[in-house]
């Protein structure tokens, strides 16, 4: 095996220390060329750090890297790129105001004489890359007008344009539709045959088993398992990741559902391009019920939640909480009426990164600690401590910036903030996105418990397994419309076909 897949890059006793954590402890890692090297581990296990070290974004505090037998030190990302290491980050590093071509060549423009950008040559290469990646994207399109999945493809094209010999993909499928994932996997197979060494990071275990040739499992900065993918199964990965058997989905606790607590009628959001992003959606949630809203990217699910949370002044429709019409047009008014949203993008929408954990937790509930003008810091801190305990958030101090926490713990802060407002309805947009299995399981357990306490939960997800396992009822959206309504235990195939109503039409054209 090792003869057909020569080792391209090695790390020996690599250590990396961050504020708050030691992310890598004496890690030994071999990267094999012409193969997919899978990296897996819980959030904060150190896989992102390991990947950043390989890509030159971060430097080791101790240990050594060798590239094709020679010791190397990557000063920065450009240096690593010169050595043939390309990386596609989970959070896209692109410029929405530039075209696809300009994005692909940012930092290494094709020039004539070092000054004049050779637009024609760049466009030709970009078009060729798009063809190779099977994407029907005009290289002159502004990046900002592309879907997230397409933007991800552009990011990959960017790495390919630099002739990467080693390509690192960090959660490349988290924003992709099923069809786009297939394209990506074909591209990966293609690259493998060309001898490119691929480092592949993902939380989707089935995906890893399918695509990987070698697997490295990390836990708390230590490698707990490294082997060829042959014979690897999910229990093996999970036990190495968290040290115990799978606990991802808690058993459904049977509890009686209450009265209808939340209803939306005819919610619509016109699209700037004509038509509707959200097309006359109506749905209802009962107290104690978890309703899963499934659909593909761009189905209008997030937009629906945003309409409910008063983010789109142009939206129309009616909301009812406990049978009473909600007329408030402001976010704070709707929070007061018992709505709370866990946004999809923690960094952008969920948290104020430079504020402390305490300040983030209480941001929506400051009124509870205020008499007249005066904010009681004591009452605030007490409440924050209570929620840190309740949500089992792992922190060193309430006063540390929230950005020092791992993704899972940040998500718990966001949920804690929402729960502190005492909601009757919890809207959750991809609550498990970018979170490791351990934290995921905790968040699912929390959702179950909240539902058992009588909260109505409407959650959006793109993960089929998740929606099937967690929901008391499954709603499916496509093209802004409700296309399916299934009870718990529905067949996966039915849910999928409801999510892709014009699949046949697309195929026939």
């Amino acid at each position, binding site marked *: 095996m090792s003869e057909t897949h020569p080792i391209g890059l090695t790390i020996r006793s690599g250590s990396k220390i961050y504020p708050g954590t030691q992310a890598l402890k004496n890690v030994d890692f071999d990267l094999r060329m012409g193969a997919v090297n899978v990296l897996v581990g819980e959030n904060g296990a150190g896989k992102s750090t390991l990947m950043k070290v390989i890509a030159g974004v971060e430097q080791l505090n101790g240990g050594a890297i060798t590239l094709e037998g020679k010791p190397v030190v990557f000063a920065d990302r450009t240096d690593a790129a010169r050595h043939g290491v390309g990386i596609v980050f989970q959070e896209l590093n692109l410029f929405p105001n530039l075209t696809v071509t300009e994005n692909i060549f940012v930092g290494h423009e094709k020039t004539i004489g070092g000054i004049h950008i050779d637009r024609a040559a760049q466009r030709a290469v970009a078009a060729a890359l798009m063809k190779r990646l099977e994407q029907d994207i005009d290289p002159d399109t502004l990046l900002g007008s592309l879907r997230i999945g397409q933007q991800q493809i552009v990011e990959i094209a960017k790495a390919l344009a630099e002739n990467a010999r080693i390509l690192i993909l960090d959660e490349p499928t988290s924003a992709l539709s099923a069809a786009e994932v297939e394209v990506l996997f074909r591209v990966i197979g293609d690259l493998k045959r060309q001898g490119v060494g691929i480092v592949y990071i993902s939380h989707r275990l089935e995906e890893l088993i399918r695509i990987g040739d070698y697997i490295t499992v990390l836990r708390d900065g230590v490698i707990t398992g490294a082997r060829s993918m042959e014979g690897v199964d999910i229990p093996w990965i999970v036990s190495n990741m968290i040290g115990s058997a799978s606990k991802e989905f808690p058993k459904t606790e049977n509890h009686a559902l209450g009265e209808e607590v939340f209803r939306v009628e005819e919610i619509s959001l016109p699209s700037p391009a004509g038509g509707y992003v959200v097309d006359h959606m109506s749905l209802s949630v009962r107290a104690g019920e978890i309703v899963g809203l499934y659909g593909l990217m761009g189905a209008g699910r997030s937009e629906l939640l945003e309409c409910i949370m008063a983010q789109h002044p142009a939206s129309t429709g009616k909301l009812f909480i406990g049978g009473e019409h909600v007329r408030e047009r402001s976010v*704070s008014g709707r929070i007061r009426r018992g709505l709370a949203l866990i946004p999809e993008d923690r960094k952008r929408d969920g*948290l*104020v990164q430079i504020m402390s954990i305490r300040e983030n937790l209480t*941001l929506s509930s400051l009124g509870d600690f205020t008499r007249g*003008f005066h*904010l009681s810091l004591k009452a605030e801190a007490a409440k924050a401590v209570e929620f840190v305990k309740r949500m089992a958030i792992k922190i060193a101090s309430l006063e540390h910036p929230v950005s020092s926490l791992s993704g899972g713990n940040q998500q718990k802060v966001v949920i804690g*903030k929402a729960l502190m407002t005492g909601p009757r309805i919890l809207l959750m947009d991809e609550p498990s996105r970018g979170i490791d299995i351990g934290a995921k399981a905790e968040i699912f357990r929390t959702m179950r418990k909240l539902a058992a306490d009588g909260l109505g939960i409407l959650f959006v997800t793109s993960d089929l397994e998740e929606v099937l396992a967690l929901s008391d009822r499954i709603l499916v959206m496509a093209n802004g419309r409700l296309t399916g309504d299934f009870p718990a235990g529905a067949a996966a195939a039915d849910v999928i076909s409801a999510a892709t109503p014009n699949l046949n039409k697309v195929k026939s054209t």
Partner: protein
Amino acid sequence: MSSPVIAQGSKVAGPSSQTSMLLLLLKMRTFVALILVFAFFAIAAPNFLTGANMLIISKHVALNALLAIGMTFVIVSGGIDLSVGSIVGLCAMVAGWLVLYGIDLQIGWSLQLNTLEICLIVAVVGVFIGLINGLLITKLNVAPFIATLGTLYVARGAALLFSDGRTFPNLAGNPDYGSDTFRVIGSGTLFGFPVSVWIMVVVALAAAYLATRTPLGRHIYAVGGNERGAALSGVNVDRIKIFVYMFSGFCAALVGLIIASQLQASHPATGETFELNAIAAAVLGGTSMSGGRGRIGGTIVGAFVIGILADGLIMMGVSSFWQTVIKGLVIIAAVVVDQVQQKLQSRVVLQSQA
């Protein structure tokens, strides 16, 4: 006295104690700068340390500090207010007009006002311009820089129109109307300190309280830190932004009143480039131009550093051209040191966790 426990403690702190001392110095840098500047002029400038001089400096500083307090909130919220200097000028002219002429009712009568009424009207003018700034920025989506640049011109022009560019002289007021107390604002003293300094102290304390102990203050920091995140958390972002510009306008109105009263005259060019000094004081005090970070205490110290530097250099007979150069260098140095501190701080945290 030196118990083994203490010895052990100092041993543990040993390797990093030098850096942590340095870090402490850097954290207190504005304060350190203040002490250094003060000590320097105490030695180098004759008569610097006299009580009379201290009072003069504190009166100068009070003006800039007041503007800088308002500016700090604006910058923390993620904006900028370039119009404060012009608001000072306009408010001084309004005050002058009211003291001299009162309000002409167009029926051969005029309404004469006492000092309190004049102050209230002037404050309303300042707050109103702040409101316009806020509305432009929130409802009409104009970038703060542009919106306040526009009101900078409009307010300055309005100030010139008030008197056709002339100065309102002899604002002594009239005892019959109760406006003879107008000059107290600028030249009166209370417990030995100028009234203007007391105004600054009161506004500073109120602002510091507002920043740290009220939901409003917290919301200002949240809006500056992540506007979208704050909005989704139920913060009324527009209201917060409008407030900070209104507060900044209010601070500028106070300064306009104080200057008109101090000089007993109001000139339409009053307050030109004051906005830059206010921004400088806020930045010197550690306010981040990208929003979300800054403290009222830091801003006050920053205003004192700038004020003492300016007056001290004058007393030493340094040419005003050199003064300008030095002021610029100090501001740049402050921001550079700020960067160094943040880098060092993260390194110290790293070491402590290794």
